[in-house]
């Protein structure tokens, strides 16, 4: 079982969506959650303090989720971070692009707490290996 104290960063330009993800994480026992409204904001926060997990939307102004993912993977101090993409982009090319850029998981909106739980567990399992 994952440590419920782990610190999450939820990245989405849409405040309602951040709120929903925060609540779903809380339901799964993760209460240490912070938010960022786009990739630029997220990178600043990630470089400012330690986080354990990133949940990011794809379509955002300033810096998209995929660009954020590439930036994280290119940064020596951040590249180990698990990044779960949570997005309405269900196109094959998007999913392939995210996988190639090093996404740890991919959840398509709309989703439930159960789906989120399942993907998180999968990522935790991989991390322990």
């Amino acid at each position, binding site marked *: 079982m994952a440590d419920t104290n782990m610190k999450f960063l939820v990245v989405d330009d849409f405040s309602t*969506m951040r*709120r*929903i993800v925060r609540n779903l994480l809380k339901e799964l026992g993760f209460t240490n959650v912070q938010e960022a409204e786009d990739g630029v904001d997220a990178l600043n926060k990630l470089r400012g303090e330690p986080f354990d997990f990133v949940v990011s939307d794809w379509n955002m102004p300033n810096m998209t989720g995929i660009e954020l993912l590439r930036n994280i993977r290119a940064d020596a101090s951040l590249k180990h971070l698990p990044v779960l993409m949570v997005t309405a982009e269900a196109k094959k090319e998007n999913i392939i692009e995210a996988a190639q850029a090093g996404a740890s998981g991919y959840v398509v909106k709309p989703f*439930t707490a159960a789906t989120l739980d399942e993907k998180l567990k999968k990522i935790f399992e991989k991390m322990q290996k």
Partner: protein
Amino acid sequence: MTAAAPRKKRTSSSDARVEKIGLATARLHRLLKELGHTRKLEQTAATMPDARDRLSYIDRAMHEASETTISAVETSIPLTKRTLAACAELSAGLSKIRSAKHGELITATISGLGEIAAAEENIHHNLMRIMEAQEFRDVAGQMVNKIVMAAVEIESILLELLKEYAPDSKDSLISSEGLTSGPAVKPADSLNGQDEVDDLLASLGF
């Protein structure tokens, strides 16, 4: 003087081209006018700001509704958790009591607490579903935004056409209502909430 001849020649040939384009434009203009298309263009362009306002209203209304819903769910979830904990605690306490006199009542209460807890679990599950359902706002909002952007684009194309083919039409009026104004302008004659409605009614003597 030597340079004058070729220059004059070039000017006259481009004059002819300009004249041709001018004639074609005038002809197209006349045709559009005869067909009544400038009027139609004008009408279509004029409906765009209204369409945009309505879409923005829908977007705002959806946003407010889902925010209110999530707030209500957020305050309700801890209540269900508290009730569940209280049921478990009371049941555990009651089951320790050995009483010949109130034995039946205790059994009935424990079973009642079990039913309340089961119902509460159900409510909790449903609250989560209500929360998850609010995700529609994200995708629906993006769609509305795309349509608003398309409306802006169509409006500007129509205004361009109007400027070219009907420069004397109410072009300036449309652009001041259309492109320069922001989305969702509240009509001057509408009121802001129940308080203003009540104030107005009071001022009218109701």
